[in-house]
């Protein structure tokens, strides 16, 4: 009942506001009349009675305001009123409003875009029903990458011995040929344990996923298709289950299709059980503990925390280590690490994304400080308006609320515009993030991101609104007494403004140092000599139908035919086959491999690390094609075949590292503990095969005919390489129509691509820093201009008393520069502390690189000087007489 009454009043109050106001007015004036009458009755003269009545009543407006304050829904009404009033104020100052909204839109837009990527990649839970419990295991040894794949025997060890994981599943991915009648299609195939999908918690869209029986040695071959592959290559055929494909010389039956979920750790076309992969299921592969190629996932048992699982796996690792001392010598420091899948998928993106988010937040902070300064300047002109309102009964809280409503109105408008800006940039950012993580596909602007944008908008509105609002003058009478446009700001506000500018300069200095360091590091990357010449070299990936080539002699013949045919194409200067080549996307992600070897006459004592090296099988013409210089000995020829003496060529790093004072040519090494010895025939220069930023590792090149077929074809051309790809494709088709050819790229493009992520990070940080500098410079210029216009009289007096114009300008500029220098000094300290966070993104550049710091400081002083000088020059236009007369 009471609530109903209140609600009815709320409705009445809001809908009949006008009547209400009139009635209140009449009621108060009738009270005044009655009071006057009473006093006249008591014997007072009419004039005196009216005055006394007024005194007794107190301020008419104040009484009315007090009544308004108890009205139901007063807050809503005031809010609407504030918004209406605020909107009017902002509309009346379109220039100011536009400047503020645009500044904020840039800041909020940048934050929204980067946050949506951060959320999608780093924070959003995995879209699987067991997502939170999924973990990845990584094996590591001392001095090796922390990501050694698992061998079959190792998978078994962990699967059988773990007490903390519900299940241990393996995964690896290969390309196989999916054969039609006259076509060969390369499909990316994930080879997984039968319970892989159950562990992840993925239910099929069509059919079923794998059963334990599918993984037994003599089961019929089955395939599960990914949703994307089913849609793009099978036309979303609803009757696909039961369809038979040929793969690896066996019929494979489709048993199911996955739902459209992101695939981890990578997007694959089809899935097969481990027993069907000819490499994985080979007895020779399974028997050797050193044959490693699988990734291992697990699911934590309910309630088991990660550290417990880590302790469990570490214990298994030490048992495995002591049971197989030949495979894991004590000195190797073998161990295993377990990490949540969600973190693991994004670990390469983490630093970059957080740095960018921090930079975006800094830009917004600067924008807020700048807007706060603009608000302060404008408040000066509104001093009288506010004073009048408070004389009419507005409380201080009410005025503060009014100002905050205006600023939040501005920031929300900026937020909406920022969202508009964030949408188009998101596509670019997703492409960027895709270089680090498969989860980039999950980036989108959703409810969480919208909530973030809303929160950031409101927060920044409050942030840049509070300082000005709280500094609004308390003494009404002072403000009212002042003449129009003559309001000078108090000391407190002056220093608040200066403080805001110092903050802006400091923060933009930090950003500029960050961008400067990235640019410096990128410059160094660009000037790195790759050790070969990528111009006019084409790379192609070849996949023969492995089931038709069983003997190594067949591969040798295939390689010979390919090279003969391709070398005969017009415009081809040289061609070579290789198992790996510089900047190949695979090489860039996986990094150098590592195999143990022995040097003849240098037995490894039991406490020492076995020497390791990255091995690459290359055909004749490889070094010639890449123009990788031969330093000693000879290159491979067509005579280095299976029947000839086993030879190898090593790179300069390995020569210096292993044969410092001796001539390596003629020395022998072995990859099978001395059963066969390979003679070093030559030394070539170092090539940065695994990325310009990676230090060159020791490298052994083996002749393709002795090491096995390499699937990459490299062609140096005399013409534009892309122009002759059809001819090369035809030459390859002539060798074998079932030879699948893809990933046709020039090495120049691959080199360019290999630098894409540092390049984009540098560009983004550069944009943020440039934006920050621009905003700060306008901040300095703004405060200077205001100072000059406020001090016109004082400066006029100075000039009238004989101070020269130039010395007045100098005085004003000096004051601006003091603020700028204080900001720079603060920024210098901040940069020293924060730049360290960048160090993992920097190449051959110290986070406290002197030249960067010097250059940025210089740039800052020049920009700050200009920003001070331009407004200060207005001093020269002051006419002392006019300035003195101004009142």
């Amino acid at each position, binding site marked *: 009942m009471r609530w109903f009454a209140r609600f009815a009043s709320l409705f009445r109050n809001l809908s009949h506001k006008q009547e209400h106001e009139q009635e209140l007015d009449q009621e*108060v004036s*009738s009270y005044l009349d009655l009071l006057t*009458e*009473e006093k006249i009755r008591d014997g007072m003269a009419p004039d005196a009675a009216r005055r006394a009545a007024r005194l*007794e009543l*107190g301020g008419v407006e104040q009484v009315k305001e*007090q*009544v308004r304050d*108890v009205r139901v829904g007063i807050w809503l009404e005031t809010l609407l009123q504030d918004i209406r009033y605020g909107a009017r104020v902002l509309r009346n100052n379109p220039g100011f409003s536009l400047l503020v909204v645009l500044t904020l839109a840039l800041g909020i837009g940048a934050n929204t875009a980067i946050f949506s990527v951060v959320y999608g990649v780093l924070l959003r839970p995995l879209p699987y029903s067991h997502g939170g419990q999924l973990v990845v295991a990584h094996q590591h040894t001392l001095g090796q990458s922390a990501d050694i794949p698992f061998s079959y025997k190792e998978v078994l060890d962990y699967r059988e011995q773990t007490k903390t994981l519900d299940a241990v599943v393996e995964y690896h991915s290969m390309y196989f040929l999916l054969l039609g009648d006259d076509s060969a299609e390369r499909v990316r195939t994930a080879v997984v344990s039968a319970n892989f999908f159950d562990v992840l918690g993925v239910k099929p869209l069509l059919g079923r996923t794998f059963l334990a029986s599918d993984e037994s040695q003599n089961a019929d071959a089955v395939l599960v298709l990914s949703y994307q592959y089913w849609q793009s290559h099978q036309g979303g055929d609803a009757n696909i289950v039961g369809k038979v494909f040929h793969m690896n010389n066996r019929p494979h039956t489709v048993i199911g299709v996955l739902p459209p979920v992101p695939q981890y750790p990578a997007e694959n076309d089809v899935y097969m059980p481990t027993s069907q992969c000819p490499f994985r299921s080979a007895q020779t592969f399974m028997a050797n503990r050193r044959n490693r190629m699988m990734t291992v996932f697990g699911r934590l048992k309910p309630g088991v925390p990660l550290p417990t699982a880590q302790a469990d796996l570490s214990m298994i690792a030490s048992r495995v280590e002591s049971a197989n001392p030949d495979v894991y010598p004590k000195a190797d420091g073998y161990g295993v690490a377990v990490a949540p899948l969600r973190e693991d998928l994004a670990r390469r993106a983490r630093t970059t994304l957080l740095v960018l988010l921090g930079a975006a937040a800094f830009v917004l902070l600067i924008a807020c400080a700048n807007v706060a300064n603009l608000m302060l300047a404008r408040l000066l002109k509104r001093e009288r308006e506010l004073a009048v309102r408070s004389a009419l009964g507005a409380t201080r809280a009410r005025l503060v609320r009014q100002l905050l409503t205006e600023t939040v109105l501005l920031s929300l408008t900026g937020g909406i515009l920022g969202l508009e800006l964030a949408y188009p940039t998101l596509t670019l950012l997703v492409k960027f993030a895709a270089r680090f993580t498969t989860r980039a596909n999950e980036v989108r602007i959703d409810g969480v991101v919208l909530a973030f944008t809303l929160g950031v908008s409101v927060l920044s509105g409050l942030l840049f609104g509070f300082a000005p609002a709280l500094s609004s003058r308390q003494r009404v009478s002072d403000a009212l007494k002042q003449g129009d446009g003559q309001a000078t700001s108090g000391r407190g506000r002056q220093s608040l403004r200066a403080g805001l500018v110092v903050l802006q300069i400091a923060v933009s200095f930090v950003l500029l140092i960050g961008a400067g360091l990235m640019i410096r590091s990128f410059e160094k990357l660009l000037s790195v000599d790759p050790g070969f010449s990528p111009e006019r070299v084409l790379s192609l990936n070849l996949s023969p139908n492995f089931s038709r080539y069983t003997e190594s002699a067949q591969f040798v013949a295939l390689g010979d035919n390919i090279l003969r045919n391709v070398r005969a194409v017009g415009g081809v200067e040289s061609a070579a086959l290789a198992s790996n080549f510089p900047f190949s996307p695979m090489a860039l992600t996986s990094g150098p491999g590592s195999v143990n070897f022995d040097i003849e006459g240098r037995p490894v004592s039991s406490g020492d690390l076995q020497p390791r090296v990255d091995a690459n099988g290359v055909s004749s013409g490889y070094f010639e094609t890449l123009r990788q210089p031969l330093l000693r000995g000879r290159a491979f020829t067509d005579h280095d075949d299976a029947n000839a003496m086993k030879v190898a060529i090593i790179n300069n790093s390995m020569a210096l590292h292993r044969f410092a004072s001796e001539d390596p040519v003629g020395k022998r090494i072995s990859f099978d503990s001395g059963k066969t010895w390979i003679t070093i025939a030559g030394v070539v220069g170092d090539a940065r095969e695994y990325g310009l930023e990676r230090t060159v590792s020791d490298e052994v090149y083996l002749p393709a005919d002795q090491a096995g077929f390499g699937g990459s074809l490299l062609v140096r051309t005399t013409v534009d390489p892309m122009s002759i790809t059809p001819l090369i494709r035809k030459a390859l088709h002539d060798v074998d129509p079932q030879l699948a050819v893809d990933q046709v790229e020039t090495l120049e493009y691959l080199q360019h691509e290999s630098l894409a992520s540092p390049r984009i990070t540098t560009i983004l940080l550069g944009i943020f820093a440039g934006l920050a500098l621009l905003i700060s410079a306008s901040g300095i210029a703004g405060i200077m201009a205001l100072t000059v216009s406020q001090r016109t009289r004082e400066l006029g007096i100075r000039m009238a008393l004989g101070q020269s114009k130039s010395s007045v300008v100098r005085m004003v500029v000096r004051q601006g520069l003091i603020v700028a220098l204080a900001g720079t000094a603060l920024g210098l300290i901040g940069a020293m502390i924060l730049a360290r966070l960048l160090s993992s993104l920097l190449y051959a550049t110290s986070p406290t690189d002197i030249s960067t710091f010097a250059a940025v400081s210089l740039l800052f002083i020049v920009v700050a000087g200009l920003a001070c000088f331009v407004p200060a020059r207005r001093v020269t236009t002051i006419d002392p007489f006019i300035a003195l007369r101004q009142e």
Partner: protein
Amino acid sequence: MAPEQTPLLQGTLDLLILKSLALQEMHGLGIARRVGQITSETFQVKPGSLFPALHRMEQEGWLTSTWGESENNRRAKYYRLTKAGRRQLETETERWGRISLAIAQALETP
């Protein structure tokens, strides 16, 4: 002439207004004077507190108001108790009785 004035306790004003209106409808000044009269001028209600209280109580549904003529033919807004207002007066009276009794007891305790 003016006796010692006591600041109004929180909630007391409502009770006094309800009580003043118990017998007949009245305009604002009438209520103010009536409160002074029934409390022997101990409480004097200022318009700054009277009007907000009247409007609040009207919104609570305890009072209704109509425009009418004063004794000297002046337009004035008259307030009257509603049923809910009478119930509120009873509850408030009872509550006040309890409070004053409790306070009196507390003060008598040696």
